[in-house]
């Protein structure tokens, strides 16, 4: 068993009075693809957003390779560089072309020279199958293309973990496949991934472990085959009966 890369240690999160994450603990090891499923409002996106501190937690600790992200004095900018995030609504920068979206952070945050950043960005665009769209603006791209640029943008910072927050939920059904293909390839290359999704096929095929969340609790965690074939909890059985 390799050491945990991303650790959630008794994490509690409230929105006002609402207890959205109820003492969650989970470890993600290096190279693992961890898929989080569960009904809407179960707290899975919130958990993901706590991992790079887009949301603050009220108690517990979240650590990246032993460094507490949730600490008051955490160097957030440097920690976030190691945690890539892809959003449901893409959040591409509309005033920048695809390649500028990708090179912005490497240039401004890491100080990588423009020519090097461009070269790397072209390589990433090529990897996600968008070599020809380097100079397109986001609103000239389809949803699937936008999301692939967003993945390339996150990868350009060479993160150690990638967070995927329902990245196919805003896509037309026929565009889902192209995004999942990129994620599948990323998983194959050994990227550590934390994926919140409703795509059960993807969870079963690509996930190393599946976590079921319900009402702010981590209800079940298992290997995909076990989870999908023989769920251990009633909650798991009920969820799967609705999904499949």
């Amino acid at each position, binding site marked *: 068993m390799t050491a945990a890369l991303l650790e959630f240690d008794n994490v509690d999160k409230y929105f006002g009075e609402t207890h959205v994450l109820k003492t969650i603990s989970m470890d993600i090891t290096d190279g693992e693809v961890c898929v989080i499923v569960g009904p809407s409002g179960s707290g899975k996106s919130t958990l993901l957003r706590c991992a*790079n501190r*887009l949301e603050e937690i009220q108690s517990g600790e979240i650590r990246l390779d032993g460094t507490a992200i949730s600490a008051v004095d955490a160097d957030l900018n440097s920690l976030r560089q190691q945690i890539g995030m892809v*959003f449901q609504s893409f959040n591409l*920068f*509309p005033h920048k072309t695809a390649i500028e979206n990708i090179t912005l952070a490497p240039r401004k945050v890491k100080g990588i020279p423009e020519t090097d950043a461009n070269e790397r960005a072209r390589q990433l665009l090529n990897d996600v199958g968008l070599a020809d769209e380097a100079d397109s603006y986001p609103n000239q791209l389809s949803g699937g293309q936008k999301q692939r640029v967003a993945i390339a943008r*996150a990868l350009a910072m060479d993160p150690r973990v990638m967070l995927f927050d329902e990245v196919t939920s805003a896509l037309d059904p026929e565009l889902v496949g192209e995004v999942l293909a990129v994620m599948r390839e990323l998983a194959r290359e050994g990227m550590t991934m934390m994926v919140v999704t409703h795509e059960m096929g993807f969870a079963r095929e690509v996930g190393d472990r599946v976590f079921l969340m319900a009402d702010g609790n981590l209800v079940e965690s298992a290997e995909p085959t076990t989870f999908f074939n023989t769920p251990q909890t009633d909650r798991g059985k009920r969820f799967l009966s609705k999904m499949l």
Partner: protein
Amino acid sequence: MSDSFSKARGDVGSGQETRITDTLLRRVAIVISSVFTIAIALLLGYILLGKVDYSLIPTIFPQFVDAYVLVLTIVGVSSVLSVSSGIFVGLARVSKTTLTNSIAAGYVQFFRGTPLLFQIFVIYFGIPTLWPGTFPIQDWGTPTAILALTLNHAAYVGEAIRGGIGAVPDGQMEAARSLGMGYVQAMREVVIPQAWRNALAAIGNDQIILVKDTSLLTVIAIPELIQQFRNVNSATFDPWTPLLLVAIAYLSITIPVGRLVEYLENRSEWGSERV
């Protein structure tokens, strides 16, 4: 064949009652606008041919040129200052620090809530009396003009920027921060350029008003365009000749400013067909 929508609008009816149909409306509009256009043209023609004394123009032209240059200078300086400081007012308005936010809010309340004329008086007459001893600045008129216009319009620009920032989706800041960018960096590289685009129309509007607001400076005897009108009119009792020059002068500034704003708006239609 008419569709059900136009039927509902009254193409099918008893024919007894008067109904406003599309055709009727269009005809009324054509008649009204024609009458209006002809009336304006006649009035303008009458003024230009019958009321304007063209022989007076060479005599009064030089002082209008001086006034025009002065207005352009005041507008240029106040415009640059009000837009650049307005950006900071807008940033302060979205600040999560209560003190910064309240100061900016108070500033906007005051300068948007009192007349520009009042602000000009405060600066021109009020400020020098606060100085212990004699006020050191001899010609306080032009500095007053620039100060008043800048402070007043920075408040409006600030509100435009605040609205522009508010219209940028939260996800933009989140995406920038998730890439490791700091708040200031994310603001500068990601949020402000989009907020600027959102605020451009409102800022352009405000800057056109700034141009026209220079006319108020006549009350502190700044030799601007309205002041020239008053001088000429009181000497010759001829209003239309100087009014014509005033109109041309203002429009020759405000129309290009409007065009410039349009150009800037189109230029930042990132990747849409309008480029």
